[in-house]
């Protein structure tokens, strides 16, 4: 049996490295793919993995965002001589099977990819020529070859310490590319309706993979915003439903985020976004609702909940709240009333979110959400937990020097029972992310402004010493404006 398994090269983009392993795990679980790792699953961009057959390998590539391309491995080694020996042995050993690729009418192309070291075109051709023992008979076709082989040299990860010899030399046949083209296709730059907190295409696709969204799943985002997470979920076949407390946002009437745009266009909406990518049929609805209050029928269960809750930095954390008010109300019944909101602490927000997921996910369904935190006080203890949910993945994305956010993936493993019986208090950071963000930065905004002003003053003094007359930028601008109106 073992003989039938094949080795494949997985080539990953060296971006969001921390998300790669959990994405791989989610995809193999979603499709029930069997695999055996050959090399350790490290942070290197090339992995060797065994799959039972080519179909399985292609299935994996049909979903992965982290993957650049997948190759059927012919030979690999960390020494040139051994590499060529092995490649020669592979080609002669699998003569019958490889015969189709070496036929006179099979056009081909060999691509040379070197990681962490640059080679000129001439040197690359020389590398190809070292493999002159390959029994290739077909014509070269660089544009549209029938078979494409890749010769890969991996020269370590550190550009300041390139080793004298490559760490790995690989050769394989290109099977398929990953789904990275979707990052461009769903790019926010071309999207109809975006806001300040729209999630970029790559991360929202990764989130949908973490949530294991599949054809016909019911997907919910309780903090929907501009619906960026719904777009990727719908792209993978999910039927999407969203809710948000912000009336203006849900109706796409809030202030535009694009610098070139003064007012929102009439036809901007979350539905228009889905229509733009051909997923209009997947749009269920969006609702204006406050997440801190129950709204959904107890019977409803979602297959996935994907969300990016507000952290209080770019988007306020809000809920409708009762406030003590001694004044007499002057409003009449027919007046439009906007309920006042109060701060919704991250602690209670995550508590509510996990409780909601435990109640409204189907068994085996997943909750995927972001948790912001300050890097210096992170410890695994502060990740919220719930008795009915298992944390299956936790990957970090750096935001600034001292802040980060983690993408948390939970899976519901047991049926929710009445509150109090199984629920464990949620442990979240004691202090609010927002307060820390604005108040305990390394330097306050005022300090920073003063420091910058001082620097400018120093620069000006130096210029004068060199005999240059510093121009007054502000005065210049005023002049220009005056000239315009005269």
């Amino acid at each position, binding site marked *: 049996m073992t003989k039938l398994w094949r080795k494949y090269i997985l080539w990953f983009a060296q971006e969001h490295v921390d998300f790669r392993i959990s994405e791989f795990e989610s995809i193999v679980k979603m499709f029930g793919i069997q695999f055996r790792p050959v090399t350790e699953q490290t942070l290197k961009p090339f992995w060797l993995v065994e799959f039972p057959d080519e179909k399985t390998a292609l299935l994996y590539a049909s979903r992965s965002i982290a993957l650049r391309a997948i190759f059927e491995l012919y030979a690999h080694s960390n020494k040139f001589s051994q590499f060529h020996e092995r490649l020669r042995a592979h080609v002669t050993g699998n003569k019958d099977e490889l015969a189709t690729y070496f036929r006179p009418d099979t056009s081909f192309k060999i691509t040379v990819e070197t990681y962490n070291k640059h080679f000129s075109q001439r040197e690359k051709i020389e590398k190809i020529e070292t493999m002159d023992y390959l029994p290739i008979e077909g014509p070269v076709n660089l544009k549209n070859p029938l078979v494409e082989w890749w010769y890969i040299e991996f020269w370590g990860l550190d550009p300041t310490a390139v080793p004298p010899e490559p760490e790995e030399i690989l050769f394989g046949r290109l099977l398929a590319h990953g789904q990275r083209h979707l990052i461009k296709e769903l790019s926010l730059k071309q999207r109809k309706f975006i806001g300040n907190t729209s999630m970029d295409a790559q991360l929202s696709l990764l989130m949908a993979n973490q949530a294991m969204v599949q054809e016909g799943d019911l997907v919910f985002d309780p903090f929907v915003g501009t619906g960026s997470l719904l777009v990727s979920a719908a792209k993978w076949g999910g039927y999407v*439903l969203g809710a948000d407390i912000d009336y203006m946002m849900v109706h796409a009437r809030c202030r535009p985020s694009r610098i070139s745009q003064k007012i929102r266009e009439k036809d901007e909406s979350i539905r228009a976004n889905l229509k733009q990518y051909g997923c209009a049929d997947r749009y269920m*609805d969006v*609702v204006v609702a*406050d997440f801190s209050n129950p709204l959904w029928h107890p019977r*409803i269960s979602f297959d996935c909940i994907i969300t990016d809750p507000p952290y209080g930095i770019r988007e306020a954390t809000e809920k*409708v709240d*009762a406030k003590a008010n001694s004044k007499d109300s002057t409003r009449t019944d027919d007046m439009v009333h906007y309920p006042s909101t109060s701060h919704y602490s991250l602690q209670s927000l995550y508590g509510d979110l996990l409780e909601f997921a435990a109640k409204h996910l189907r068994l085996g369904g997943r909750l995927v959400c972001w948790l912001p935190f300050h890097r210096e006080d992170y410890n695994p203890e502060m990740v919220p937990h719930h008795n009915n949910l298992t944390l299956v993945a936790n990957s970090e994305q750096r935001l600034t020097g001292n802040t980060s956010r983690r993408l948390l993936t939970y899976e519901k493993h047991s049926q929710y029972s009445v509150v109090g019986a199984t629920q464990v208090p949620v442990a979240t950071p004691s202090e609010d992310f927002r307060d820390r963000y604005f108040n305990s930065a390394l330097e306050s905004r005022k300090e920073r402004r003063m420091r910058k002003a001082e620097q400018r003053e120093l620069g000006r003094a130096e210029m004068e010493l060199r005999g240059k007359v510093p121009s007054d930028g502000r005065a210049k601008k005023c002049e220009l404006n005056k000239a315009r109106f005269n």
Partner: protein
Amino acid sequence: MKLSTYNFLTSMAIKGVKVGFPLKLTINKKEEVESEFNPTFIERLLPKLDWAAIYGAAQVAELADDIPPTQPENIGENELLLQKLHHLLFEIDVLEGQLECPETGRIFPITDGIPNMLLNEDEV
């Protein structure tokens, strides 16, 4: 708002309301949107829906002739009924209208196809 979503919404957030379901639906303006018929999805969705509320929505949308008052058995084999359910649940979009809490009479407006389920401070 689609009539499938109508089936998910309750008014139980209002102080003192226990069930808050089904909400009383009024349609002032609706639109028919065409969408792809996916029988598997409807079958998966049905156990999450309340049949009485489906039937209620059908009456308001003037489609009651299509939907039986009680849920028939083996619905998965009845392709015609699934198609009618698809039309009712996904192709009717309520643009203007309202939802009324059955216990308190509180009204939630639907504007531009989006229901506003926000409550006032004194109601939560």
